[in-house]
């Protein structure tokens, strides 16, 4: 069966420090991968998505970047965190023909920038 792993679960980082969040998917090949951010009490904002290795589409200009070094690995990074980067970060995947299938989300990372 397919599973998605996301870590760490919580993270407290000082302003200006780097960030690396990792997401891996098991049990499927060539998934579409997504990074979302959710502010408190708000909906999900799409940050990046990837339809293949090395293919990254950015939705919102910001202090973050994403990479997909392997088929089932998706990494969210920042060189210098801002206070506004705080939030709940969620990784998700769906099959390539993803329009007609639901997304599977990871358990999320709660990031607090102090």
């Amino acid at each position: 069966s397919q599973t998605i792993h996301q870590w760490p679960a919580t993270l407290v980082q000082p302003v200006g420090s780097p960030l690396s969040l990792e997401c891996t998917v098991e049990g499927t090949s060539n998934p579409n991968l997504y990074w979302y951010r959710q502010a408190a009490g708000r909906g999900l904002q799409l940050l990046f998505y990837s339809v293949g290795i090395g293919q990254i589409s950015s939705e919102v200009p910001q202090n973050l970047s994403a990479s997909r070094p392997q088929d089932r690995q998706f990494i969210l990074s920042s060189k210098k965190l801002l206070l506004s980067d705080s939030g709940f970060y969620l990784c998700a995947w769906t099959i390539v023909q993803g329009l007609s299938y639901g997304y599977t989300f990871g358990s999320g990372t709660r990031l607090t920038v102090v």
Partner: protein
Amino acid sequence: SQKIEQNSEALNIQEGKTATLTCNYTNYSPAYLQWYRQDPGRGPVFLLLIRENEKEKRKERLKVTFDTTLKQSLFHITASQPADSATYLCALSHYNQGGKLIFGQGTELSVKP
């Protein structure tokens, strides 16, 4: 710009009643509409998907309708239970956008015993 609106106020209902949540959208022609459930501190969980050429979809106690003329979807939970209490998210996707899903802000449902 594209906009997805869900009831911003929390919905409080009595156990056993039918909960109805609304999702409206503007400046968008979605191919698919999806509903998710999210519990506090957790990732959303996929519930149902309905295509643009479908009027209604059912799954156990859940029912979704999709009216592309009104640009609206209704999500119903019949015989609601306290365990149904959660935030419910509506999401839309289009054919030519890499499968990316755009979410509404969600409606919080509270079912009282």
